[in-house]
C-alpha cells in the first residue's frame, strides 16, 4: 500500500496509515544511519550539496529580514522613546522565531524540492530497483546520507540567518537611523540568553530540519515512477513541509517558552 502525505486529510484512517508509513520510513532511515556514517566522504559531499545550495538564499533572505525588522522596530520603538532596545528586540525575534521558521521555509523551497525531485527521478528511471538488484540498500546508500545532511544543515543555516539578520538590523538602526552602536550591541548582549534564546531556536531548527528533509525524501522516494509523479512529489514536498513547519512552530513555542 502506498500512501502520500497529502492524503492525510482525506479520512482519519488514511491519516493514521500515512503517519504510520512515514514513521516506518523514518525508522528505516535511522536504522541505516550507522552504516551511512561509515562513509564520511559521501556524507560530507551531501552536506555540501544540500547545505550549500541554500546558503546564498539564506544570506540574502536573512539580510532583508534584518533590514525590514530594523526599520519596523525602530519606528515602533521611537513612539515610546525606547529605540535603545532595538538590538535586543531584533536579536530575540530572530533567534527565537524568525530565523528557524524562515530558514526552514526557504530550505524546504530550495533544498527540499531538489531532494524530492532528485529521488523522484531516481525512482522514475528505476535506479532504486537497480540498486536493490545489486544488493545495495537505497535507503542506506541514498536516503540516509541526505537525511543526515539536511538535519545537520538547517541549524547551521539558521545560525547564519540570525547573524546576517542582526547585521541588517544594525545597518538600519545604527547606520541609517543614527542609533549609537554601543547602545545597540550592549542592549543586544544584555537581553539575549544563550540557552533560552539561542539554543531553543536551534532546537526548533533541528526539528524543522528533520521535518522538511523527511517530507522531501519520503515524497521523492515514494513518488510514482513517471514524469508527473516526479512533479507532484516536488510540489507536495514544499507544501507539506511548509505547513508542518508552521504548525509545529506553534506547538514548540508553546512548550519551549512557557
Amino acid at each position, binding site marked *: 500500500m502506498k500512501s502520500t502525505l497529502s492524503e492525510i486529510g482525506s479520512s482519519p484512517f488514511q491519516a493514521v496509515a500515512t503517519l504510520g508509513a512515514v514513521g516506518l520510513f523514518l525508522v528505516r532511515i535511522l536504522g541505516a544511519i550507522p552504516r551511512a556514517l561509515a562513509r564520511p566522504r559521501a556524507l560530507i559531499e551531501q552536506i555540501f550539496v544540500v547545505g550549500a545550495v541554500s546558503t546564498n538564499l539564506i544570506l540574502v533572505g536573512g539580510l532583508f529580514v534584518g533590514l525590514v525588522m530594523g526599520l519596523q522596530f525602530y519606528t515602533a520603538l521611537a513612539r515610546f522613546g525606547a529605540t535603545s532596545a532595538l538590538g535586543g528586540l531584533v536579536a530575540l525575534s530572530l533567534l527565537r522565531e524568525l530565523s528557524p521558521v524562515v530558514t526552514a521555509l526557504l530550505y524546504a523551497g530550495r533544498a527540499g524540492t531538489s531532494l524530492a525531485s*532528485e529521488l523522484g*527521478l*531516481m525512482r522514475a*528511471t*528505476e*535506479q532504486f*530497483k*537497480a540498486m*536493490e*538488484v*545489486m*544488493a*545495495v*540498500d537505497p535507503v542506506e*546508500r541514498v536516503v540516509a546520507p541526505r537525511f543526515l545532511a539536511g538535519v545537520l544543515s538547517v541549524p547551521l543555516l539558521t545560525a547564519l540567518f540570525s547573524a546576517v539578520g542582526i547585521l541588517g538590523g544594525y545597518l538600519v538602526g545604527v547606520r541609517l537611523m543614527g542609533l549609537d552602536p554601543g547602545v545597540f550591541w550592549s542592549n543586544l548582549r544584555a537581553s539575549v540568553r544563550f540557552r533560552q534564546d539561542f539554543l531553543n531556536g536551534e532546537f526548533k531548527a533541528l526539528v524543522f530540519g528533520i521535518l522538511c528533509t523527511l517530507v522531501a525524501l519520503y515524497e521523492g522516494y515514494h513518488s510514482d515512477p513517471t514524469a508527473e509523479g516526479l512533479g507532484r512529489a516536488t510540489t507536495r514536498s514544499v507544501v507539506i513541509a511548509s505547513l508542518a513547519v508552521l504548525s509545529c512552530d506553534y506547538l514548540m513555542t508553546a512548550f519551549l517558552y512557557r
Partner: protein
Amino acid sequence: MTKIPRAGGPPAGPVNDEAAVRLVGASLRRGGREILRDLDLVVPRGRITAVMGPSGTGKTSLLSLVSGELAPSKGQVFVEGQDINTLDRRRLYALRRRMGMLFQEGALFTDLSVFDNVAFPLREHTRLPEALVRVIVLLKLEAVGLRGAADLYPSELSGGMSRRAALARAVVMDPAVVLYDEPLTGLDPISMGVILRLIRDLNRTLGLTSVVVSHDVQEMLSLADHFYVLADGRLIAQGDRESLRAQAAASPWVRQFLEGEADGPVPFHYPARPLWDDLLGGEAA
C-alpha cells in the same frame, strides 16, 4: 526430468540443484490481473536460456520474480537452490550479489559517470584498491566498446550506448546468474552482434548462467541453448532448438510467434471488449 551436465567454472555458493533458477507453479498478479499463470520453468546452470514472447506478456515481470523484486501470488521461485521469497534481507542481498541484471531501460545512475556506474558494484561490495577497480572497469568497458566514453554521463549517451554501459555494469562482479531484459532492442546491427558475442563469451568463459528476455526470435535462436515461449501469461513452448522447431510445426501458437504473423491464436491485443462495441457503443458497457 533430464539431468543437465554442469558447465565449467567454479560452482558458486551452496549448489544442491542442477537448476540455477527454478519456478514452481508460479503465478503473478499485477494491477488486478493475473499476468503469469502457473509457470513451471527451469533455467539450467551454465547455459543461455531465452525467454521469448510478445510485448506485454510479462517477460520483465518474470525477471522481477527471479530477482526477488516481486513475490509470486502463488508458487515458488528458487534461485541457486534457495526459495527467494523466504530469505531475510541479508540473505537476499547475499544472493543478489551473485546475480547481475540488465534493465530494459538501462537504469544507469544519472549522477555518476559511465566509469563510476560500472565501478559502483565493485566499490560497494569489495575492498579492491582503486587501481585494480580501474583495470576491471576499463576492461569491461572495452568489451562493450565504451572505453572512450568512460567519462561521459548517462544523459550524454544514446539509447544503445546506455544499454551497453548497463551491460558492463551488470557483469562487472562476474555474477553466477545474469538476467538480461531486452539486451538487443534499439541496437544497430554491429552493436547487436557485439552484444550477442559478449553474452555468449561471458557464458562460455565464466561458466555463468544467462537468462535472456527478448522478442528477437532469430537472434535468440542462434544465441540460446534453451527456450521458453510465453504468451498470454502461460508457456506455450519450451525446449532446445530442435524441439522448438518441432513444436512450431505442431502448434499454430508457436508458429505464429516464431514466424511473426499478426493473425493467429496468440493475442496481439491487450485484453479489451470487441472493437465494434468501443467504436459504436460509446459509454455503454
